[in-house]
């Protein structure tokens, strides 16, 4: 279900609930008003009966025929009221009681004409009249009491209904909407994690969300962005590698030219001084040619190996060997630039899980940067050591070059930031940063203008604990 549909639906449910509650409240209020009107009328009836009884009492005391006329008039009104309230009275007290009321009124009315014939009513008639009057009063009081009770019942019901509806709405907003909002929040959390990892240079993917809602399309979009970035990063890595290759070429030319020259000189000597050479020397010459050819082959293999696009593959490696391998690649460049080297590569460091080619690329990049920062006679120091009690391994590349200005130091890992003018792409360190981050490691820089710079790459070591996790 789409989130939009869910939100519209839950909104619709809430609106429907409110409409139902309003309808019930309106209905109850109407009933209460009707009931109250009925109670008022019943109250009037009660007043009529009360006045009738007062007149009745006066009649018995003074035997005034005027009182009798009042009673008859009120009795007529009472009859009219009772007639108009028939439905309500029947509903409130039952048909039998209504019939009894009508009969009582009739009885009460009938009693008087007999009593009104210019002589005081006898004690028997008086008792009957009093009893009928009392009955009428009691009836009207009962009616009022019952109706009041009914009104209270309706109000109670209505209050309960309101309360119930309140809980229902509360439930639907507090308990039901979090079901959909939790889905949104969970998805946002996932996307947040993903974007965080992307910003740190790891282009992970997250699990696709099932269904065809907005969350699923956002996750699909973010995943495809991540994939795209990963593709771009691989292209970038390759581009940068080819750029490093350009820098390496100066060293490589020297490395190839020397054995090539050796072979050429042996061949020339072989040809020009063949007669002066004995058998042993000739054989020795050919052996040397073979050795020199081997030297060239190694240089070419090294170079091809470095420049070839690689499938990323993480294997257990020893940082010491990684550094030695890298040094072989840059050795000639160092010689050409007349840079001294100091290596501190102790044995027995904890192993690391790395893509060797990528780490070579990082080290070649750091070392070429160091060489470019130094004048002839500078010194490059490369040291490896275990840190954090063996949980990580550090590779430090230190030069005695011109250093990095403090205001540039925080930007050195930014893409396209370069202090080399037109010569630098500004990508080397940012790519190195990405590679190291991808290895769950870190890279930091210290520099003092005029004194030199040190880059330190920290890689997590394979301990028995995290090896089990991998």
């Amino acid at each position, binding site marked *: 279900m789409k989130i939009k549909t869910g939100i519209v639906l839950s909104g619709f449910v809430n609106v429907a609930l409110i409409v139902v509650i309003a309808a019930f409240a309106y209905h109850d209020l109407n009933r209460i008003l009707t009931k109250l009107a009925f109670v008022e009328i019943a109250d009037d009836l009660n007043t009529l009966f009360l006045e009738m009884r007062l007149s009745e009492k006066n009649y018995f005391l003074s035997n005034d025929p005027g009182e009798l006329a009042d009673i008859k008039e009120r009795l007529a009104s009472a009859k009219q009221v009772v007639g108009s309230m028939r439905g309500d009275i029947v509903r409130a007290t039952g048909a039998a009681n209504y019939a009894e009321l009508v009969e009582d009124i009739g009885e009460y009315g009938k009693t008087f004409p007999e009593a009104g014939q210019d002589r005081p009513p006898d004690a028997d008639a008086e008792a009957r009249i009093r009893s009928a009057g009392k009955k009428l009063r009691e009836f009207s009081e009962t009616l009022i009491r019952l109706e009041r009770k009914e009104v209270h019942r309706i109000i109670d019901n209505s209050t309960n209904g309101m309360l119930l509806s309140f809980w229902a709405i509360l439930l639907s907003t507090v308990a039901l909407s979090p079901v959909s909002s939790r889905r949104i929040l969970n998805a946002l959390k996932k996307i947040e994690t993903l974007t965080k990892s992307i910003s740190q240079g790891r282009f992970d993917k997250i699990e696709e969300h099932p269904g065809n809602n907005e969350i699923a399309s956002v996750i699909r979009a973010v995943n495809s962005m991540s994939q795209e970035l990963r593709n771009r990063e691989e292209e970038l890595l390759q581009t940068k590698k080819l750029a490093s290759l350009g820098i390496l070429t100066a060293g490589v030319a*020297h490395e190839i*030219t*020397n054995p090539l*020259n050796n072979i050429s000189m*042996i061949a*020339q000597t072989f040809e020009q001084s063949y007669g002066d050479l004995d058998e042993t020397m000739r054989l020795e010459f050919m052996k040397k040619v073979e050795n020199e050819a081997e030297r060239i082959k190694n240089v070419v293999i090294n170079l091809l190996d470095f420049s070839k696009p690689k499938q990323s593959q993480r294997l257990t490696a020893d940082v010491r060997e990684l550094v030695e391998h890298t040094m072989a690649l840059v050795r000639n460049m160092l010689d*050409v630039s007349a840079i001294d080297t100091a290596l501190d590569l102790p044995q027995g460091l904890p192993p690391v899980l790395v893509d060797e080619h990528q780490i070579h690329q990082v080290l070649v990049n750091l070392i070429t940067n160091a060489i470019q920062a130094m004048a002839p006679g500078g010194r490059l120091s490369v040291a490896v050591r275990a840190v954090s009690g063996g949980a990580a391994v550090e590779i430090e590349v230190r030069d005695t070059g011109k250093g990095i200005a403090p205001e540039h130091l925080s930007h050195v890992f930014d893409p396209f930031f370069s202090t080399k003018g037109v010569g630098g792409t500004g990508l080397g360190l940012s790519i190195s940063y990405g590679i190291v981050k991808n290895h769950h490691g870190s890279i930091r820089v210290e520099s003092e203008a005029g004194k030199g710079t040190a880059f330190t790459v920290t890689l997590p070591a394979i301990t028995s604990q995290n090896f089990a996790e991998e």
Partner: protein
Amino acid sequence: MSGKVVMVIDDEKIVCDMAKIALRKEGYEVETFVDLVLAVERLKGRSFDLVITDLKMKGIDGMEVLRTIKEKYPATKVIMITAFAHLSAAIEAFRGEVSDFFPKPIKLKELVAAVKRAVGDEA
């Protein structure tokens, strides 16, 4: 036979060996060094007519050897060889001071001819 003394300095031993064979054939006395420091030391003990030196080697720069020779042994001629073709421009600057310059790979016949020219053995 001229009997002139030539020193060859190159950290590639094959260069030293081949140059020695070619130059001896032409009657030169040849001493070779793969180590620049030892070579400079040797210069103090004997006078050489010509020094053939590689420009870039581990240790000291061939350019320093040139400077030392020009300063202390101005009579000694110098021929430069190098694996770096791109250093030709730099060498050009020393055109007046070096007798000749050869980027590798070296043609032995040309080298021998250059040596002869430098020490005045040219016919």
